[in-house]
């Protein structure tokens, strides 16, 4: 399977990365090289093999379900590029 310029445009939108039109074609070439190379995994017989979920065989520790943090809005908002009072500012989303 080979990625076209339009495929790259679609993937770039899914990833919310603006790619200039003139970069779509070369990028398709670069991505096809990588995808073509990883497709060698098709040679491996994986019938009945469990996909890896955790590299270390250990039970996830449990903790009490309780609030342990919070009440620090000024810290949470400290790096906001467009903070407006206790809110994040974004472009208008509702007409």
């Amino acid at each position, binding site marked *: 399977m080979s990625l076209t310029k339009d495929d790259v445009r679609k993937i770039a939108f899914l990833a*919310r*990365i603006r790619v200039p039109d003139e970069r779509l074609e070369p990028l398709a070439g670069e991505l096809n*090289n*990588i*995808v073509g190379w*990883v497709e060698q995994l098709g040679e491996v017989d*994986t019938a009945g093999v469990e996909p890896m979920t955790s*590299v*270390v065989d250990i039970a996830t*520790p449990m903790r009490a379900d309780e609030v342990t943090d919070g009440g620090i809005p000024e810290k949470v908002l400290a790096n906001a590029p467009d903070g407006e009072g206790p809110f994040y500012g974004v472009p208008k989303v509702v007409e």
Partner: protein
Amino acid sequence: MSDLRDWTIVSAADALTKGEVSSVELTDAFIGAIEAGQSLNAFITETPEIARERAKASDERRKSGDVRGPMDGVPIGMKDLFCTEGVRTTAASRILDNFIPTYESTVSGNLRDAGAVMLGKTNLDEFAMGSANITSYFGTVKNPWTPEGANANLVPGGSSGGSVAAVAGGLAIAATGTDTGGSIRQPASFTGLVGMKPTYGRCSRWGVVAFASSLDQAGPLTRTVEDAAIMLQAMASHDPKDSTSLPLELPDFRAACTRDAKGLRVGIPKEYTLDGMPADIQKLWEQGAQWCKDMGAEVVEVSLPHTKYALPTYYIVAPAEASSNLARYDGVRYGHRVPGDSLDEMYELTRGEGFGAEVQRRVLIGTYVLSAGYYDAYYVKAQQVRTLIAEDFKKVFADVDVLLTPTAPSAAFAEGDKMDDPIAMYLNDVFTVPASLAGLPAISVPGGSDADGLPLGLQLIAGVCQEETLFRAASALEQAANFTARPEVTV
């Protein structure tokens, strides 16, 4: 003060204990070296005020008899992937060029609590994605081993390139690194240092800028194996804030360094022999096996049949996890923002401008392999092959204690090499990625030099949580190799 590259954590702790030097004096000397060594571009953000403050506090503690261990008062570099409270943390990306965390990562906090003195935040590949430290928004890092009059700077390896340049160049006694597919071990090999990646989960990932969460592990970059053991002891801990952090007592890593390697079984995986591997590396690997025999270890050939699939597996799993982790950089809550007329346009412009070319490439690959219709064919398939790779190791470790391999398929190369072909660059990690996929502890120890006098590392890999065996074998190997070469040019 003598050549700053003579200092190790052990020798500094000793001199501090005997009162031959104060932490303030030591710290001032390294701050001076950082000023003189700007051409390496090893640091993104220098923190001399914080360093002097912590050194002073360490000296005061020592006077009152309250010493926190061998890291107390020792000046180190901190990879700029660890969030540090009140100190800019960039991940070498434009998208975080103004980010000042309001919290401290667990690992950097552990080191701070152990008394270590942070000199600054070291350079790296953008979001730790790279093997040459050429993708940083803050510029490339120069390998201190670059010969005088060379046409181009040699790369320090990556992604922990600033950390190794700082230690090898005498700008810090040790430094932190992170390793997703080889980012501690390969740069250590390129600069004649020891680089250690512990078992996945030994070090907390909390507060470390995420690249690929099922692979990312922090570890030390040091001059000696014993220093690596001491520093890992300070970095590692069970952390309730990271659910993948191991809820286990830590063994005494330093004590393991004093045991000899007699009776160890060392495996040589035959699949690690590559076509076209430089003769110097093949020769060093054979020499390493001979050293193991000389120290009373038994050397046997073993087979890890799925080795050749490790790299393509990694280049599905890591970009997939990266695309998901990097979704958080949206220009809304922190970091760089480019205004747009709609929310989508703001996201796209912000991420198009904020991420560099290699990061964009990996996010796009990751988005593609996770997208509807392709998830099973790529991501699930890769996770199945990953299971087979981990099973290969499990079988082999039923028979041997450690594996011996080269760390990297080449010595440090010139800036500009391998730039046009991402896959040629990815091949740098061919020997380090398999252990990452299986979550195993591994260490690169300087083994010797190539014909041009550039350092080459040997890698040892052990089973899950077998760091003590690893340190034991690595100390013996270090002693046998007795690598004492230094970069010719002092910065």
